[in-house]
């Protein structure tokens, strides 16, 4: 088995078929990369959104706790 082209230039030219061959391979690589990367990006986004949601829940819980605490002191003063 040996390399079928004499030079890198002739490898890229592919005897005139270069544009067709390289366009096809380029498109395949692009699509495969997109297929592999999209779930990773979506997971990262899910994680970020969930963290934000957690922080909001936490803030709401604290606000509610503070409200009921101040209510209790107000009642105690009366």
């Amino acid at each position, binding site marked *: 088995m040996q390399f079928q082209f004499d030079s890198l230039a002739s490898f890229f030219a592919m005897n005139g078929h270069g544009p067709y061959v390289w366009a096809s391979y380029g*498109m*395949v690589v692009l699509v495969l990369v997109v297929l592999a990367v999209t779930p990773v990006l979506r997971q990262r986004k899910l994680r970020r959104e969930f963290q934000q949601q957690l922080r909001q829940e936490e803030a709401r819980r604290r606000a509610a706790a503070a409200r009921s605490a101040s209510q209790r002191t107000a009642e105690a003063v009366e």
Partner: protein
Amino acid sequence: MSWQWFHRLGSPRWFYQKSSAWLPWLGGAALLLLSVGIVWGLGFAPEDFKQGNSYRIIYIHVPAAFLALAGYYIMAISGAIGLIWKMKLSFVVMRAAAPIGAALTFIALFTGAVWGKPTWGTYWVWDARITSMLILFFLYLGVMALSGAFSREQSGDKASALLALVGTVNIPIIYKSVDWWFTLHQPATLKLTEASTIDPSMFYPLITMIAGFYLFYAWVLTLHTRTMILQREGRTQWVRELLGAPAPTKA
């Protein structure tokens, strides 16, 4: 006989935990085979005496078309399993398989068109094989659209599984199209029942690429399925903990 394994298989949580061990192996093997196959097919396989170097597109065109069809089986069978046994996981797999199948069908159509220009003198003809592949592409898009068209997730599951099942009639048509209507697309190069019409020096890189595409498919389908599990099971405690919520403290 215990059916426990069958029910476990249907559990998104079980799949999510098991599959994390498969991912690096699947991904690594897929990338290895694909890079070997691409270098082999582009630089080391001999030139075709009739088509010249444009034939090198076969090393991506045929594997993509293989997986476009195999992916449809996987999608339709998962849909059927979901309909019959009401397995949560199989509907998730079905949904995850749709965009991957659409992407692979697109690759087959695109590389076919680009290959057609220097070989047949045209990018597109309404040949039986090409037309039935285009229908396959629309079936994948249809499943994607239908699965997202309902506000109730279960309705989307059922409707798109039905569409996927009905669409399987297209699959034998695709396989047989090159024999039934002998128009422009060449008959199959690889055959199971008789000798293939391809020289070993071209066959080995092709089979490497096909194996690489299969592994890549398995890898990406697992990745998409896992992502969709996190999305759909977002309210369950195990997903919440996985995403960083504190474990529940017993008061």
